[in-house]
C-alpha cells in the first residue's frame, strides 16, 4: 500500500512538472500509469468522467486514477502531488516578486515542451483508440464524428456522453 502511494506521489509530481497545462497532462499520465497501475478501460473512464464533471479536469483525472489504484488515500496523494509543483513555483515566484519574467529560460523551457506534448498526445490518442476494443467501422465512425464535432466547438462532455451511450447500444 505504502509502495503504491509513494509511486503515485512521484508520478503525479513528475507529470505536473512536465506539463504546460492541465489537459496537457493526459498523454504523459497515460504512458506512466496504464498497464502498470490501472487498466486501459479505467483510464478511459477517468478521462471521460473528468471532462463530464465540472471543475478542473486535470485534478479530477489525477484523483480518479489515485482512487482506482489505492482508494481514498490514493486520491488524496494524487491530488497533493499535482498541487505541489505549481504551488511551490508560484509561491517562489511571488516571493521573489515576479522575477520569472526576467528569467526567460523558464518560459523557453515551457515553450519547448508544447510541441513535444502535442505529439505525445497524438500517440496516446492512437493507443487509447486501438486498445479501446472498438476498432471496427463503428469505432472509426464514433471517433471521426467526435473529432469533427469537437473541432467545431461542440462541448466535449456532451460528445463523450453520447459516444458512451452509443457504446452501450452497440457493444454490450
Amino acid at each position: 500500500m505504502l509502495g503504491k502511494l509513494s509511486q503515485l506521489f512521484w508520478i503525479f509530481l513528475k507529470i505536473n512538472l512536465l506539463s504546460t497545462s492541465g489537459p496537457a497532462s493526459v498523454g504523459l499520465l497515460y504512458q506512466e500509469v496504464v498497464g502498470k497501475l490501472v487498466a486501459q478501460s479505467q483510464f478511459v473512464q477517468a478521462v471521460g468522467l473528468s471532462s463530464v464533471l465540472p471543475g478542473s479536469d486535470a485534478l479530477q483525472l489525477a484523483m480518479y486514477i489515485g482512487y482506482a489504484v489505492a482508494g481514498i488515500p490514493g486520491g488524496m496523494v494524487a491530488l497533493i502531488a499535482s498541487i505541489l509543483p505549481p504551488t511551490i513555483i508560484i509561491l517562489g515566484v511571488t516571493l521573489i516578486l515576479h522575477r520569472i519574467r526576467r528569467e526567460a529560460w523558464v518560459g523557453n523551457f515551457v515553450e519547448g515542451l508544447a510541441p513535444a506534448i502535442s505529439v505525445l498526445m497524438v500517440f496516446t490518442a492512437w493507443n487509447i483508440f486501438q486498445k479501446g476494443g472498438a476498432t471496427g467501422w463503428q469505432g472509426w465512425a464514433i471517433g471521426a464524428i467526435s473529432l469533427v464535432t469537437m473541432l467545431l466547438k461542440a462541448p466535449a462532455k456532451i460528445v463523450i456522453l453520447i459516444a458512451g451511450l452509443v457504446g452501450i447500444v452497440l457493444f454490450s
Partner: protein
Amino acid sequence: MNEQQFSVWSRLLWMFLKVNMLSPSGPASVGLLYDEAVGKIMTEEQFVEAVGLSNLVPGSEALKLAMFVGFAAGGFPGVLTALLGSILPPTAMMLIVAAILQQLQRENWLKGFVTGMSPAVAALIVTVAWELFPASTRKIGRRTLLITALSAIAFWVKIPSPLVLVGAGILGVMLYSKRSFG
C-alpha cells in the same frame, strides 16, 4: 486579523467555489473568473498579468491562475484560500463518483459505455493536442517543427516520455533564447 482582511478571504473562498462548480474545465474558468474578480478585488492589469504568468509556469493552469488571483487580492493567506476553494468542489464530486463507479466495474453496460467512449476520448485528446500546438498562438517556426519532428521520432522508438519532454524543454531553452538576442 482585522475584519476587512477576513472579508476578502471569505469572498475569495466563495468566488473560487463558485467558479469551480460552474466551469467545465480549467481553461474555461478564465472567463468566469474575469467577471468575478476584475474591478472587485483586482484591476484588469493585475488579471492580465496573472494569466500571462500562469502560462509561464508548468502545471495545471486553472490552479496557477487561482493562486495568482488569490495573491493579488489577499497575499499568502489569499493564495491558500484560492487553492482551497478551487480544490474542494472537484475533490468532493470526483471521490463520490469514483466510489460509485468502482462498485459498477463488472456491469456489462459499463463495458459497452467505456468501449463507445474510447474513440471519443481519443478524439478529445487529439483536439486538445491541436489546441496546445503552438500553431494557434504563434506562427510555426523552423524551431517548433524541429522539436515536433525530433519528439515524434523519440516517442516512435519508445524513449521514455518524461525524458523526451525534458529534452524538448531543454531544446526550447537553447533554440528560443537565441531569438531574443537577434
